[in-house]
């Protein structure tokens, strides 16, 4: 096993790529009672179009999420029953680019690891089971549709990436889910649920050698799938126009979003993480509670605590979404655009502010280190090299304001901007 040592934080990471291609990451936490394991599949909602052994496949939107649900449903039992016997907690979730299956437990780690690896690696699909799941997923879709914040977020992404797989909700919609067939599910599974397309990250109470032995023994019992050639197809057409996209929903105050689609190239691996941290620092410098700009918007009563922003850097795309409830939506959009346009010029003068921000981010990383859920949740096993939060904090420490300014300038120079506005019929605009 490869050992990566983090003496500053008294932590170690063990890495081993198994013969079948599965990569295992083990991060023991001394003194902890609990063990958290995340089995990640490098497959998400955007992977619905691909070339398989030279032939083009187009699948219904929501297929990855559908597959996630179906993995729990076995011939004559539900996987939750198995976890229930050991008392472990288990869950799964699908994002644009990944599907993660996880458990956490203070008992019977080996047994739970076998359950996790087996239920994800040994599928059982039938026509009847596929049909029955549709009703549940429809209710899940409707639950998200009922949430205006969720709607605002996904509509903004759809406006940034129109006519592309990113314009679909992760779960798809009721008609697309209805189209999913047993054959679709099997094909998606066989294409993407392959050991070389998975990573297993385990944090908490564990003995690295013994844990690896358990995993190897489990994998040795399974036959490797036949090799396939897969090429993911994702075209993200450029938008012809920028502007405000309005929609109507029953909301207490108008909801504004401002989305920024990154069109600059993002480096891979550790450098990509550096890019992400730099963009976050940029937003902190201009839109966190520490910034003059935020303070002004707040005291002009254009924004309040509902203000937030997030930045996503994923396989093949990156974007930011800023959102807030406000009674002055058009003024907020105008002011945000002004603030953003001045970033490349103003950022160079923020030396002491940057130092303060680094201080805060550094402390935030120390805080994350106490949570094995965060350590494992933050980890991305598919960027070519292992980068843990212990690496991220070192990237942060060595980051300069010039680094941030350079990344910010590249990002903003080419970013396309779309605004979203959700309001009631009766709400007037300012």
């Amino acid at each position, binding site marked *: 096993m490869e050992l990566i040592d983090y003496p500053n934080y008294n932590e170690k990471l063990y890495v081993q790529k198994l013969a079948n291609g599965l990569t295992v990451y083990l991060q023991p936490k001394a003194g902890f009672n609990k063990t958290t394991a995340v089995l990640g599949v490098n497959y998400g909602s955007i992977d619905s179009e691909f070339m398989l052994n030279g032939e083009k496949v187009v699948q219904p939107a929501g297929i990855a999420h559908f597959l996630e649900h179906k993995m729990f449903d076995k011939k004559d039992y539900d996987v939750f029953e198995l976890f229930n016997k050991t008392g472990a907690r288990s869950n799964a979730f699908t994002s644009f680019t990944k599907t993660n299956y996880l458990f956490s437990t*203070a008992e019977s780690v080996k047994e739970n690891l076998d359950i996790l690896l087996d239920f994800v690696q040994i599928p059982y699909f039938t026509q009847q089971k596929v049909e029955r799941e549709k009703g*549940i997923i429809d209710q899940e879709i*409707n639950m998200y549709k009922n949430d205006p914040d969720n709607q605002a977020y996904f509509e903004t992404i759809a406006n940034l990436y129109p006519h592309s797989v990113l314009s679909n909700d992760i779960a798809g919609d009721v008609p697309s889910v209805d189209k999913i067939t047993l054959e679709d599910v099997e094909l998606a599974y066989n294409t993407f649920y392959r050991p070389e397309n998975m990573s297993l990250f385990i944090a908490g109470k564990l003995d690295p050698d013994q844990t690896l032995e358990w995993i190897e023994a489990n994998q040795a019992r399974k036959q490797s799938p036949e090799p396939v050639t897969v090429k993911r197809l994702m075209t993200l057409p450029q938008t012809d126009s920028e502007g405000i996209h309005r929609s109507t929903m029953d909301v207490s105050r108008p909801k504004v979003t401002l989305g920024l689609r990154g069109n600059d190239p993002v480096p891979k691996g550790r450098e990509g993480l550096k890019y992400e941290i730099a963009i976050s620092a940029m937003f902190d410098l201009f839109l966190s509670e520490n910034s003059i700009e935020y303070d002004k918007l707040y005291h002009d009563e254009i924004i309040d605590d509902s203000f937030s922003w997030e930045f996503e850097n994923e396989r093949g795309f990156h974007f930011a979404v800023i959102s807030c409830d406000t009674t002055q939506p058009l003024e907020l959009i105008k002011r945000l655009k002004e603030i953003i346009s001045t970033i490349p010029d103003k950022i160079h003068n923020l030396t002491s502010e940057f130092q303060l921000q680094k201080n805060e981010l550094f402390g935030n990383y120390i805080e994350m280190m106490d949570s094995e859920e965060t350590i494992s949740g933050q980890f991305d096993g598919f960027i070519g090299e292992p980068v843990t939060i212990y690496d991220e904090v070192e990237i942060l420490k060595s980051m300069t304001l010039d680094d941030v300014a350079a990344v910010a300038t590249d990002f903003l120079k080419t970013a396309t901007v779309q605004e979203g506005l959700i309001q009631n019929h009766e709400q007037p605009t300012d």
Partner: protein
Amino acid sequence: MKYEIAKGIGLTTIPTTKFKNSKIIINFTFRAHHENYAKLALLAELLENCSAKYDSELLVSRQLSKMYGASFGVTVLRYGNQHTLQVSITFPNDKYLPPKSELTSEILDFLREMIEDPFVDGDQFNLAYFRIHQNNMVNYLDSIQDNKGFFSTLQLQKLYYSNDQDHGSFLMGTPKETKAITSPKLYEFYGQVLSQSKISILVGGDLDENVVVNGFKKFRSFVDRTPDTFDLKVVPDNVEKVQRGTKNIAGSQSVLSIAYRLPIYFGDAQYFPAVIFNQLFGGSSRSLLFTNVREKNSMAYDIHSSYNSLVGMASVQAGIDYKNEERVTEMVAEQLKQMIDGHYSDELLEGVKQALINQHRSEADHLSALIEKQYVQQIMGFSLSDADWESQVEAVNREQISEVAKQMSLRAVYQLNSRGQS
């Protein structure tokens, strides 16, 4: 270790070297009266965002960044009959910070500043500051309707305690109550909170206890007091019939919420059977509600039950299609009947026990959970060793669970109806 800072002000430390951060919470507590809810919620906002020295939100925020992104918050809570103003702060341990860092004293000075020297002009909170946060609070209260599940929970609570505002009202107050508060009145109220509350301080992590105790002794307002005592358990009035409420909205899903009286409280002989009953009924992903309503009949994605042992109440909530409302209501009643009749497998019962024990052991990995556990045991005057806790869980049998299920009496139903796409 337990210390007394003054009469009526206790400090408990939970020393542990397992974590890289430490946490301090300060609870100011008194008996819950609904007239105070809006006031205490707004007060929490005003104590969190500014002080005399840090007289803008920006300065507080920058001070927190300077203290390595310490997470500071002031919030309101209700433990049964107890109304609580909670100040909390989490911060990294010195050994991970640059050499010679002494963050603990800085944190204590900061807490003292925020608590004892709020942003006031004469005998009121700074008016511009007061007004902006009052406004924000009203906007927040108005926005709750956007969150359908939470909105329904609050309506259900109101129905459940139809004649009892101290327990039926939302802890943050109403927009109307918030608007009616004036700055001088709120400042006066704060004087009472500070001088009359019972104060419980809890400190978890790897800290020098002397530094902490001496730090709190410097708080000039932390002086002797004789807080009134009261029972934490909430016993609701009897009601003649089931209370029902309905609201129609434009939306994509209906939310069905059902509340039962379950007169079993933390520390009672039936407490553990009640906890296990809830897990079997709808509290886990193997529960009867989850299995039969969701997995077998595809009627819901989210359906769950919860049990509050401080108020003796259990509730069920489900996001469903409007057309299935009657059927789901029937199915919930059927699952309760199954619980009374003991129609579930031994395997499921054993698994639920296993899961509770597993989660109990897992709690020790979260500093916040350790502190919360310590505090609840303290105020309830009921504590069990981990071994006793586990053996009590193990000892629960089917008869006991059935006895618990029989005590469930339907008390309130709230339907947030949406008949289709918005």
